[in-house]
């Protein structure tokens, strides 16, 4: 909050200083305009542009009009931007007059002066525009309707979170294609962990663990759709599952799930499928004995 107030006051200062600068530019505009309107010949002679006194007078009218606009309007922003446009016009008029001009020095001096004023005009216009946007935002915020009670969920958002997961049948054509699913997504590791604790593991029945683990190894090595796991990964995963099962009171997971679990390590030596089966079966049996 403190920062907010600090930023706000900075913006206020900026807005006030921009308005002050705009007032100054307004008076400057009227002064320059009067000079251009009343003494066009002297000015055109000094710039070596004798044939342009009519144009200088017209520019004078423009300067006076923008000056009055800045001083008289409640919001000087568009008038200051008009000054920026006028500056560009002045520079575009002066630049072609530089070559082959006996008063070249004066023209260059005038261009530098215009460039300086242009910079001031730009700064002022930008600050005023920012302040205007800020004021507009503040106005909106003051009149902001309160939609904080419009959840659209009469029983509350948290009550509704995920309710459609129970009864919405995801259309097949909008499911992530099988080949693009992360390997662990909903199947291998998570499903395996779930089964390990649910007591449906084959080891819990006390029979057929070797067969199950054989299936595991077979599934992992033969499936062409799933990313291939190294045998070492399979063994390690099976061992992890056994350890988990032991911690859970001996309900070892089906190794079908375990076999598909990815592992970050791929540096272990490759084992044959037969070795995998044997090793995994031994692990399960050992866990059961314990």
């Amino acid at each position: 909050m403190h920062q907010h107030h600090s930023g706000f006051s900075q913006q206020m200062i900026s807005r006030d200083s921009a308005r002050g600068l705009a007032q100054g530019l307004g008076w400057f505009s009227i002064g320059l305009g009067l000079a251009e309107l009343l003494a066009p010949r002297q000015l055109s002679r000094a710039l070596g542009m004798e044939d342009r006194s009519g144009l200088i007078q017209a520019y004078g009218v423009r300067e006076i009009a923008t000056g009055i606009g800045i001083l008289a309007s409640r919001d000087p922003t568009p008038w200051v931007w008009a000054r920026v446009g006028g500056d560009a016009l002045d520079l575009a008029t002066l630049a072609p007059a530089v070559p082959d001009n006996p008063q070249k020095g004066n023209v260059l001096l005038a261009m530098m002066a215009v460039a300086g004023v242009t910079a001031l005009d730009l700064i002022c216009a930008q600050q005023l525009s920012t302040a205007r946007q800020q004021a507009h935002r503040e106005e909106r915020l003051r009149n902001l309707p309160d939609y904080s009670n419009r959840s659209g969920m009469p029983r509350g958002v948290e009550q509704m979170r995920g309710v459609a997961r129970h009864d919405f049948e995801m259309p097949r054509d909008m499911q992530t294609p099988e080949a693009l699913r992360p390997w662990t997504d909903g199947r291998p590791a998570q499903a395996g962990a779930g089964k390990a604790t649910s007591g449906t593991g084959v080891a819990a029945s006390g029979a057929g663990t070797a067969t199950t683990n054989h299936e595991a190894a077979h599934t992992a090595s033969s499936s062409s759709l799933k990313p291939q796991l190294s045998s070492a990964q399979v063994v390690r995963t099976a061992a992890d599952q056994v350890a988990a099962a032991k911690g859970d009171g001996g309900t070892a997971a089906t190794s079908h799930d375990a076999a598909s679990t990815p592992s970050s390590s791929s540096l272990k030596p490759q084992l044959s499928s037969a070795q995998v089966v044997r090793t995994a079966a031994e692990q399960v049996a050992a866990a059961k004995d314990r």
Partner: protein
Amino acid sequence: MRALCWHGKNDIRCDTVPDPKIEDPRDAIIKVTSCAICGSDLHLFDGFMPGMQSGDIMGHEFMGEVMEVGSGAKDSLKVGDRVVVPFTITCGECEQCRRGNFSVCERSNRNKDIADKLFGHTTAGLFGYTHLTGGYPGGQAEYVRVPFADKTHVKVPRGMTDEQALFLGDIFPTGWQGVVQCDIQPTDTVAIWGCGPVGQFAIRSAVLLGAKQIIAIDNVPERLVMAEAGGAITINFDKESTVERLNELTQGKGPEKCIDCVGMEAHATATLDSMYDRAKQALMLESDRAHVLREMMYVCRPAGTISVPGVYGGLIDKVPFGMVMNKGLTIRAGQTHVKRWTDDLLRRIEEGQIDPSFVITHTVGLEQGPEMYKTFREKQDGCIKVVLKP
């Protein structure tokens, strides 16, 4: 009858036009009781969609009472039925309809030849949405002719209000499909660009479908407040960097699912690419502003999904497709297959899981429609959704 008619850019009028008549045995005439101004109507109002003709009747989100039924629709509808009309007109018989891809019905666009040339193959006919999609008079009117009415309707149960049912015709199923086609998982962070009406429904849909974290992005304060009320964390892109904040909220990994509920008129102004888009659009070298798409491609987590329910009409420029390819992103887009979702969503409304009327901020008569187009576009007076009562 009175109807809101398009007469050019920024020029919509409430005109008196001839009443519609049955033209085909499968037609029905509906007396409109409620209709709405959709965000995609603004693309027509702003003159960004080609194919409109002066005098075209606007509106594709409407409902009402059946007044007259053609002989071929009598088995499905009877006079007096209350119906919501999906904005995509569907024959129900072509190969695409049989597959449930109703928004690309092969038979309902009577200007199929033009659409074939423009898009390669036709899409479904739409109400009040250019002659590229059939030039069918829309529903911001007292009466409307519904072609293929035996299939293009959703019956409204007794006791359900217009305000609860109306949005089944477009924005509710559109937000829903935008989320469904992301295949939301319980571990997902979903980022939703745009908190207009479709964005608001996408947020609620993501809640119902159980996303872990929902992040909504906009710069209109009252829309962000409504998004928060619906369960989203919000990012005001005028005040903070969308990309930095999204990465912060996802431990630097980016959201898995990104949904574009903005479409062709992205309003970001402080970025180089959006300035470039505006300049190209002004010179007619580009039809759509693609800032949101670019941002999604940049920030989406590798192997993530980008869903685009927001409307795009033609050409976009400087699309970083290298990001899409190298990050392995999936892109899903499309007009809404409204009828695929309406039974399920109607049940959710009846069960009180959601009350779609939350999004209505303005209800006025049809004659105030032209004024409300401006209010809606300028986001004045807290306007998020306008309902018109003809």
